């Protein structure tokens, strides 16, 4: 990958929307690059077609018996957490070298990323906050969908709605895969409710709840990442994706793993 900024801070790879297996393969390559270079890297991307991603240990049978998910492509992430309906969210994958101070405890990396978003939302007048321990303790942790869970540190916003769930509406959830020498953190910022999803997998996004990012999700994300780079004591830089001439075979091999049943149906 080509670097456009010196080391330190955070380098952003703004990628295009892609199918689930391709996205997971690209995230693995990102993690390898972070380990090799010693940099904090983040990839931003979408999903085309809309896809349901499962946490690494979730049973695919639980997805297949939900009528609302019939016909949806399903991919299994390497990271933990609950299922996410992608297509109207902005997904990030942050890869951090294992030597980084935020790499030791899972909570530290969640807190850094999530609090940066809370600060950006508050600067835009949105009543955002992090789920506290008491709320997290009283919401069942094992719900199938990520956005029905309330883990400590998830980003929620209060909204004038009689259906307001415990702790507020969740708009950002994250999950990690901790590998030798690198931490990969996935997260989904829910921009708006997916028009094709019904039932327990349908969740309102920021645009539905407060309208603040309806036309400015790019600005919101830019502000969020700027704040995160400040916490990383460095600049926010841009990076290009892999040079496909050198990564193509590796990328295809990884994508084939995520598309294959050995991985998809492992649980």
């Amino acid at each position, binding site marked *: 990958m080509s670097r456009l900024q010196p080391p330190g801070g955070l380098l952003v790879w703004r990628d295009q929307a892609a199918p689930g297996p391709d996205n997971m393969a690209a995230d693995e390559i990102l993690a390898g690059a972070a380990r090799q270079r010693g940099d904090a890297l983040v990839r931003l991307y979408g999903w085309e077609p809309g896809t349901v991603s499962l946490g690494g240990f979730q049973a695919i049978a639980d997805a297949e018996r939900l009528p609302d998910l019939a016909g949806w492509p399903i991919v299994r992430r390497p990271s933990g957490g609950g299922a996410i309906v992608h297509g109207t969210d902005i997904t990030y994958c942050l890869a951090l070298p294992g030597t980084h101070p935020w790499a030791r405890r899972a909570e530290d990396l*969640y807190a850094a990323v999530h609090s940066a978003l809370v600060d950006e939302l508050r600067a835009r007048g949105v009543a955002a906050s992090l789920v506290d321990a008491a709320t997290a303790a009283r919401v069942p942790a094992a719900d199938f969908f990520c956005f029905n869970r309330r883990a400590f540190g998830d980003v929620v916003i209060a909204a004038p709605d009689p259906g307001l769930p415990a702790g507020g509406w969740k708009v950002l959830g994250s999950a990690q895969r901790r590998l030798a020498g690198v931490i990969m953190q996935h997260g989904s910022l829910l921009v708006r409710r997916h028009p094709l999803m019904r039932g327990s997998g349908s969740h309102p996004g920021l645009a539905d709840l407060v309208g603040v990012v309806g036309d400015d999700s790019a600005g919101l994300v830019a502000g969020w990442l700027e704040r995160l780079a400040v916490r990383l004591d460095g600049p926010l830089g841009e990076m290009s994706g892999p040079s496909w001439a050198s990564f193509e075979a590796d990328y295809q091999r990884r994508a084939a793993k995520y598309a294959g049943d050995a991985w998809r149906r492992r649980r």
Partner: protein
Amino acid sequence: MDAPRRYAKSHEWARPEDDGTVTVGISAYAVEALTDLVFMQLPEVGAAVTAGESFGEIESVKAVSDLYAPVSGEVVAANTDLPNGLETLGEDPYGKGWIIRIQPSDPGQLDALLDQAAYDALVGSQPH
């Protein structure tokens, strides 16, 4: 008396046994860092493992972590009680919290691992 444990930088420990096998677990440091363990996937007995490569996975509330083999060889035993009692990892990581036992193909690989002092130094240098 047990033989001294050796450690991988990825926080697995390995202890040679009198019968030539190597018992493997994860360090107390690693257990403390993972916190709130919810699921573990063990290899089958008879599986081949390779030093430095993943032999299993463990999930805490929101993080999945790989478990790396400290030596190459064949898995001759797996602690199948562990997935249903993950608290054992925290209570007794070097005893009842053992994870697998390996018949090593090259016992000399143990020499490449960290001794207790080197591991303590590694952990001491880890970010807190």
